[in-house]
């Protein structure tokens, strides 16, 4: 087990390096000279001299690989440099300022997703092809075919403008988190329900379920103890990964609801060409994705006796 964890972590490290390298390379794909951009956004006329000075300040005059290493060293110490827009602000500060709002939004959504989708999925699987199941399947279908920003607009129109019970945007007013969180969770609810339902139905046709019935176990025990656990086992990867997807999915929602989180920061940085922030965002999401993957794999490994069985023998 420990051996597996160590090995798994050892594999994650080169992946992280690769991700950081991509994040670093991307900024060098910019069609314009970063130094020039940095000057322009601060409304300094870019003469050759100033550009040269800026290049030196940003370290752009050094060789490529050396720049990567020094950048990486800074990044490890959580120093992502300064924002181009506002030179006095560090990227780290900007991100940590926006992060709590996003985390709040994403975690509430996650709670909604789990609370809603699990009971529905189990119910649908147990009463397959019942009226309820068919109705939910229709909803799931619509849920996967509908763009979530349109859902957001519809919800704003209904609850904020028509009924006037919830605020349209921002995060100051009471209850302002409800609409964005619900909208964000809707897409994932349909994904989750479909995933778990189908997986449970598949598992129910397995021979071990039949044998459990033969052994005279209660249907409830069979569903919860055997079928559900096996289904979660096989969807654990997808479920774990959706945490990251939820975080990156906030980009659209935050923009519609003017939620001051990291997704909105990212979009405004794209419009303002504030490259260091974009870079930090990419890096953060990439690393998060790898970490999530790592945790999911370890959990999966821990829960499935088929995977760590070799150690016992």
């Amino acid at each position, binding site marked *: 087990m420990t051996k597996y964890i160590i090995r798994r972590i050892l594999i994650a490290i080169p*992946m992280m390096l*690769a*991700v950081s390298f*991509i*994040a670093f390379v*991307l*900024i060098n*794909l*910019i*069609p314009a000279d970063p130094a020039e951009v940095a000057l322009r956004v601060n409304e300094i006329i870019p003469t050759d001299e100033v550009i040269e000075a800026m290049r030196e300040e940003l370290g752009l005059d050094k060789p490529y690989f050396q720049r990567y290493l020094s950048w990486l060293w800074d990044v490890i110490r959580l120093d992502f440099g300064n924002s181009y827009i506002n030179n006095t602000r560090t990227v780290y500060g900007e991100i940590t300022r926006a992060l709590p709002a996003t985390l709040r939004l994403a975690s509430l959504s996650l709670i909604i997703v789990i609370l809603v989708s699990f009971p529905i999925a189990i119910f649908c699987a147990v009463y397959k092809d019942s009226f309820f199941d068919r109705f939910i399947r229709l909803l799931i*279908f*619509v849920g*996967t*075919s*509908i*763009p979530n*920003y*349109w859902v957001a*607009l*519809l919800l*704003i*129109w209904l609850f904020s*403008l028509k009924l006037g019970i919830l605020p349209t945007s921002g995060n100051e007013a009471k209850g302002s988190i409800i609409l964005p969180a619900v909208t964000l969770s809707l897409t994932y609810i349909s994904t989750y329900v479909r995933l778990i339902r189908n997986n449970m139905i598949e598992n129910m046709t397995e021979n071990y379920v039949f044998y459990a019935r033969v052994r005279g176990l209660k249907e409830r025990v069979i569903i919860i103890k055997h079928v559900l656990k096996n289904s979660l086992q096989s969807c654990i990867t997808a479920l774990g990964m959706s945490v*990251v*997807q939820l975080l*990156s*999915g906030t*980009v*659209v929602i935050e*923009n*519609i609801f003017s939620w001051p989180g990291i997704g909105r920061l*990212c*979009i405004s*940085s*794209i*419009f303002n060409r504030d*490259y260091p922030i*974009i870079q930090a*965002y*990419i890096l953060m*999401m*990439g690393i998060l*994705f*790898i970490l999530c*993957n790592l945790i999911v794999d370890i959990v999966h490994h821990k829960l499935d006796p088929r995977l760590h069985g070799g150690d016992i023998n």
Partner: protein
Amino acid sequence: MTRKLLRNKVVLVTTSIILITILIGAFAHQIAPNDPNEASIINKYSRSSDEFPLGTDHLGRCILSRLIYGIRPTVFLSLFTMLCTIALGTLIGVISGYSIGIVDEVIMRICDIMLSFPSQVMILAVVGMLGVGINNVIFASIMIKWAWYARMIRSMVIKYNNKNYILYSKTIGTSRSFIITRHMIPNIISEVIVLATLDMGWVIISISTLSFLGLGVQAPTAEWGAMLSEAKNVLSTNPSQMLAPGLAILIIVSAFNLLGDGLRDVLDPREV
């Protein structure tokens, strides 16, 4: 096979919806009642009339015409993206599946890295770095999706290569071209078509989302996501503006999703 396709109602209906949409988009110039970009402030927010069947928007432009012209960027570009993705993915997947050792290993590691970013983040990254615009959005979409297809197709190639009927063909010395054209391609193609059709919905939504955020198609070009973005600004005064483009996306995405499910049934050889 064709008869089976025609017998399946879902496939028939959804295919017609998609084909009609494509035709309307292709002949937008002839079909649309008005110029989609002709603004007239006097006519803004007008209700449906003979001249403007679906009314006009905040600049007095004909909504129906904008919807029709919007098919081009929304549906055509998504189709283009998908075709490029599949072409690239298939090519690399097949190379990887047929080659053993170092080539396969290198390709798979590259795929791993490509797949180690959440897709939305990767698109944002590319667009963020290369700049706002639909070309970059398409480029980014292809960049993040090909690896997934390459991996799928590689595993299919390996799976079918171990099927007994291909082992038999190899045993008796059937020509490689026969094995590939008669055994491999029909099986792989039908699986890929189903996957790609189901994925089309995702691509349409993803491209229109980016246009909605202002990162993709730029004003004043008519695009469904961009139209919704404009509708969002007048949500409090004219909420009905958001209906038409939203429904359009819903219908076309549903059509692709249903078609994918239908094709899965039809292309399964065990279905009678």
